[in-house]
């Protein structure tokens, strides 16, 4: 699907990093910084916020095997894509640790096959999708979406997947179905963050998210099973995740095992944790700041290193207002943030 894009955020083609220039981030320097600056003090903690303290976490050598997928290609984007290496190494997926590089380092042996995604709740035809169904039941297309994190950085990602509405239509919702509730896999053995509060950032797992029915049925709302032409790596939410491009990234729940249609607004993980900071709707909105970050602008992660001038204005609904603004016509978005 072609998404029209305004040129404000357009970056030059030559700013795309060659994959080969990207080097493994768990580099010697973090260890040196750790030894130099804090060896006396920090041995009790491992990686999280500061990144420089992950000296003690083990490094995995295996790399998760991704498969190529057949899909309908998207129109070329006028926006510079975030290089694949960055898309798969800069992730908020606290089930595998709280620093951005933890998921790629801790998730490579994650098992996605067999998988079971259960569609249930207020539906006439509940059903379950197995691993292979995720890639064969619905036609897979490429969609190039902007991803805006609540932490005020963003990426442009070529996802592969299908509209969530396909699943919902197949389940045949009853008249009571007003919301859709999502749940991530609950597997502490595979997910270190679910085993330990320290690694998992103090979140109550499993991670849960939700959408209003009309949001879920919007054609933009994507169930993604891949990116950059291949199946998803675990750090990006393999084997299947949600992508809601007009909402902050934390709404786009990863590694989903349950989709349940419900009558009442379902609980959502970050809202439970800090209701004043994270609302149910979480629409990208430059006019409403997060207590800790201005949301008026963002840093677009592409390439170019420290001196990349990558701060751009944030657009209402992340630039997808044409497609989704009508969903919120009579709502006060300052109150329903």
């Amino acid at each position, binding site marked *: 699907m072609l998404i029209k894009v305004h040129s404000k955020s357009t970056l030059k083609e030559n700013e795309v990093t060659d994959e080969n220039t*990207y080097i493994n981030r768990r580099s010697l320097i973090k260890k040196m*910084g750790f030894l130099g*600056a804090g060896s006396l003090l920090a041995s009790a903690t491992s990686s999280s*916020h500061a990144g420089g303290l992950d000296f003690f976490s083990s490094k995995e050598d295996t790399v998760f095997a991704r498969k190529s997928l057949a899909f309908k290609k998207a129109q070329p984007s006028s926006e510079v894509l975030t290089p694949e290496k960055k898309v798969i190494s800069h992730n908020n997926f606290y089930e595998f640790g709280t620093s951005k590089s933890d998921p790629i380092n801790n998730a490579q042996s994650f098992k996605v096959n067999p998988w079971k995604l259960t569609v249930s709740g207020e539906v006439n035809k509940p059903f379950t999708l197995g691993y292979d169904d995720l890639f064969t039941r619905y036609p897979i297309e490429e969609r190039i979406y902007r991803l805006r994190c609540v932490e005020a950085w963003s990426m442009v990602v070529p996802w592969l997947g299908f509209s969530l509405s396909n699943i919902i239509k197949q389940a045949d919702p009853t008249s009571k179905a007003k919301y859709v509730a999502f749940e991530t896999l609950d597997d502490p053995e595979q997910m270190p963050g679910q085993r330990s509060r320290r690694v998992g950032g103090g979140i109550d797992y499993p991670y849960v998210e939700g959408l209003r029915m009309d949001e879920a049925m919007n054609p933009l709302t994507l169930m993604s099973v891949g990116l950059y032409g291949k199946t998803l790596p675990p750090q990006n939410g393999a084997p299947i995740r949600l992508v809601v491009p007009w909402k902050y990234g934390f709404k786009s729940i990863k590694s989903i095992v349950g989709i349940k249609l419900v009558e009442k607004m379902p609980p959502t993980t970050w809202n439970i944790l800090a209701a004043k900071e994270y609302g149910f709707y979480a629409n990208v909105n430059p006019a409403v700041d997060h207590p800790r970050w201005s949301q008026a602008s963002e840093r677009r992660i592409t390439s170019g*290193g420290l*001196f990349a001038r*990558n701060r751009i204005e944030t657009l209402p609904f992340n630039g997808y207002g044409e497609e989704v603004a009508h969903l919120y016509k009579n709502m006060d978005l300052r109150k329903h943030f």
Partner: protein
Amino acid sequence: MGKNRVELPITLIKLLIHLCCLIPLVYVYWQAFNDELGADPVEAVIHFTGIGALNIFLVSLVISPLAKKLKQGKLLHVRRLVGLYAFTYAVFHLLNFLFFEVQFDMSLFVSEIFERPYITVGMIAFIILTALAITSPNVIKKYIGRRWQTLHNFTYLAGAAMVIHFYWSVKSEIIEPLVYITLLAVLLTFRKDRFKRWFK
């Protein structure tokens, strides 16, 4: 003093401090300039210099209790150097924020300082560290006289502001900042006699 004490090689210790503080800093920036420091070098350098400043600052607070314990008064000669490196890292931390995070958007820079409580306390720490750094040369110390010690007691307030800055900056992963708060508290208990005197 019954036994002969070993003379501390102060010059050598100072050299090691220089190397331990400078080499990682240069190397991190070299990587960041070349886009080899993870997907988001901006976040990486901000976190590295921030946590680095805090680590070095805490090392500076270890020195005087350690000197007392080991009866090595000469160790105090390296305290200023360590403190100045904590300040140096803090300068880089703040400049990272201005240069690379808000990218010279001065109105955003100023509004962020006043509107985000964690940045406000971070700035308080930075202002104190700046005052301490400026008044650290011996000439200025002599010039200021007795009030120098009063000024430099603000070190402890700066420490508190730094750990609060860290604690408030995280989304939910509070354990690491709590470890730092605990470490600071332990280092301050070594000075409880001094604090008691203030309140007499």
